[in-house]
């Protein structure tokens, strides 16, 4: 059984109108029916463009955002059914690493106090043992012990993210949700933080949900990757498979946006460009959500029939009516959507 099982998760944000008497006039469907499984000890990468709802999925898993529908099972326990003290206890086992390490650390708290906070709120240890645990955590993430009495603003971005990671592992959780853990960092620092995350995973047998938009980072760290578009998951595959043989048109377009570090190849290869903007999640297109921008759009089915997430190959799920035909090359991208890289 998977450590985390998400079924039909929906998070809708109501749009309200009216000055005195508020009424709900619609909803932003940030997450609109997501199924996910994360096995213990593995990493699931969740990618997608800005505003596709990937962060909201992570926040909903931790109950930081109320879910509209669906269920989340964590180690067999229904997360959404927990309240009060039970929820607090469950939170010990699911922690989060935030995107911006400066704004996620209280500027008035010393590093020692930040790292002691999870231990104090859950009464795990106290007194000298608490001090020892804090020092141990600093050591684990590669920060000097004397960081204890210093404040977040005295550290660099990478060091701050190490503090954020140390705080997340303080309670020895099973699951860590990392929401864009490295996108606020310098490229030179990103690798270090990613390596630290991997090292900790092996050492502490952690399970990760890594949310990111950087395909290279996600490929490096994840066993499985889920691609999200406009509130739904369009493709799930083992990470190498996804990069080698993407099946969903959106994934194909995403991957073709990565430049190839060889000018000759880069000049000749065809890039698949997506036209238009991300449609409003308050009013998503009917049928397949991607049909308004899909270069492989077909006259039938695409705009009137919602596709199913089908498992085409073992462990490889695709949310497209025509995935087989696209893969077989029977459907070619329309001219408007495809431009040679040199012209683009």
């Amino acid at each position, binding site marked *: 059984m998977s450590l985390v099982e998400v079924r039909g998760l929906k998070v809708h944000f109501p749009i309200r109108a009216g000055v005195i008497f508020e009424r709900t006039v619609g909803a932003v469907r940030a997450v609109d029916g997501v199924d996910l499984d994360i096995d213990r000890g593995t990493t699931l990468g969740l990618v997608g463009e800005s505003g596709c709802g990937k962060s909201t999925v992570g926040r909903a898993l*931790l109950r*930081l955002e109320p879910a509209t529908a669906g269920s989340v099972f964590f180690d067999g326990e229904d997360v959404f059914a927990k309240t009060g003290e039970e929820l*607090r*206890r469950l*939170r*010990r086992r699911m*922690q*989060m690493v*935030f*995107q*911006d390490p*400066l*704004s*996620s*650390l*209280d*500027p*008035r*708290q*010393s590093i*020692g106090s930040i790292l002691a*906070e*999870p231990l104090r*709120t*859950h009464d795990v240890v106290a007194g*000298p043992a*608490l*001090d020892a645990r*804090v*020092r141990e955590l600093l050591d684990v993430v*590669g*920060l*000097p*012990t*004397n960081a*204890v*009495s*210093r*404040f977040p*603003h*005295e*550290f*660099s*971005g*990478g*060091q701050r993210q190490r503090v*954020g990671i140390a*705080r997340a592992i303080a*309670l020895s959780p099973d699951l860590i949700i990392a929401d864009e853990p490295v*996108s*606020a*960092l*310098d490229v*030179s*620092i990103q690798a*270090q933080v990613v390596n630290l995350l991997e090292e900790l995973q092996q050492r502490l047998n952690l399970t990760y949900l890594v949310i990111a938009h950087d395909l290279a980072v996600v490929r490096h760290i994840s066993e499985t990757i889920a691609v999200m578009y406009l509130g739904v998951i369009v493709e799930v595959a083992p990470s190498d498979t996804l990069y080698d043989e993407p099946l969903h048109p959106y994934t194909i377009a995403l991957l073709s946006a990565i430049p190839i570090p060889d000018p000759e190849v880069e000049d000749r290869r065809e890039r698949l460009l997506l036209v238009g903007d991300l449609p409003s999640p308050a009013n998503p297109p009917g049928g397949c959500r991607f049909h308004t921008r899909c270069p492989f759009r077909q006259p039938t089915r695409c705009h009137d029939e919602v596709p199913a997430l089908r498992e085409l190959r073992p462990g490889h799920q695709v949310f497209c009516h025509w995935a087989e035909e696209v893969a077989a090359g029977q459907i070619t991208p329309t001219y408007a959507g495809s431009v040679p890289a040199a012209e683009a």
Partner: protein
Amino acid sequence: MASGPTTGTSTTGGPDLVETPGGAQPGPKPAGVVEREFTVAVRSQRQMILRRFLNHRLAVASLIIFIALLMGSLIGGRLWHYGFADRTGDYSQPPSLKHPMGTDDIGHDVMALVFRGAQKSVQIALLVALLSTTIGTLVGAVAGFYRGRADALLMRFVDLVLTVPSLAILAVLASVVGSKAGGWFFVAIVLAGITWAPISRVVRGVFLSLREKEYVEAARALGANDRRIIFRHLLPNALGAIIVNATIVVAVAILTETALSYLGVGVQRPDTSLGLLISDGQGAAQTRPWLFYFPGLVIILIALTVNFIGDGLRDAFDPTQTRVRA
């Protein structure tokens, strides 16, 4: 998007590759004592606050002047050979050696009056600042943190307090309780009842913005309860705004007390306050300026010094103030 280090200090700018343990550590931590390190760090945080305050020269100077003023009026009032209620027999005398601040038209020694007035005014002002800041912070914190119905209810009440003219309330109070309830304690409570409203507004605003901060969310994800979030994360970060407002209230309280005295619910004669002295001396500003300027000077001194002390406190509690790290 990604906000870089906004308060980039020169010691932490380089890549993480050169993170050297303690290499860029300007703190006063002794290296040897490993066992007690954490407790030492906690104490040094308190010392840092003290040091940051002591390094704020204006604030320290203000504190000294303020304390001198307070002690002067307390001790001076007792030592001075005229009491504040004594009639000296010298009427409307300009400052002289016998009466360093002159006398008023019924023969009171102005120096004795100023001693007494400063004592009463500071007493009232500090109590008002304490009460109104406490109430205002509490109401603002609850409204800003819980939002929704609690917020709407509390803020409409604040609107009420703000919009109903305070002088009208005071006039009614004056006629109801009359001079029986006079006395500085009553005055302070009435003033606090008016001045807490704007503070609650400010604190609510600060809380509304702070509660959306990522570190609050992080605390919640860690399993911190509301009380912990409010007292450990929101309140310390709102401290700057709260302190500044408290210092403003001190000045406001001293001046508003005048209006109360004028209406007969304030400090009762023959007792006096700085506000009362000012309003008495106003008409004489041209002809007998000493009646007006001496109490006025003391009010200005009190307001200024309290403001600077507030500034110093605000900076002292802010760990990002690295200006005076020595």
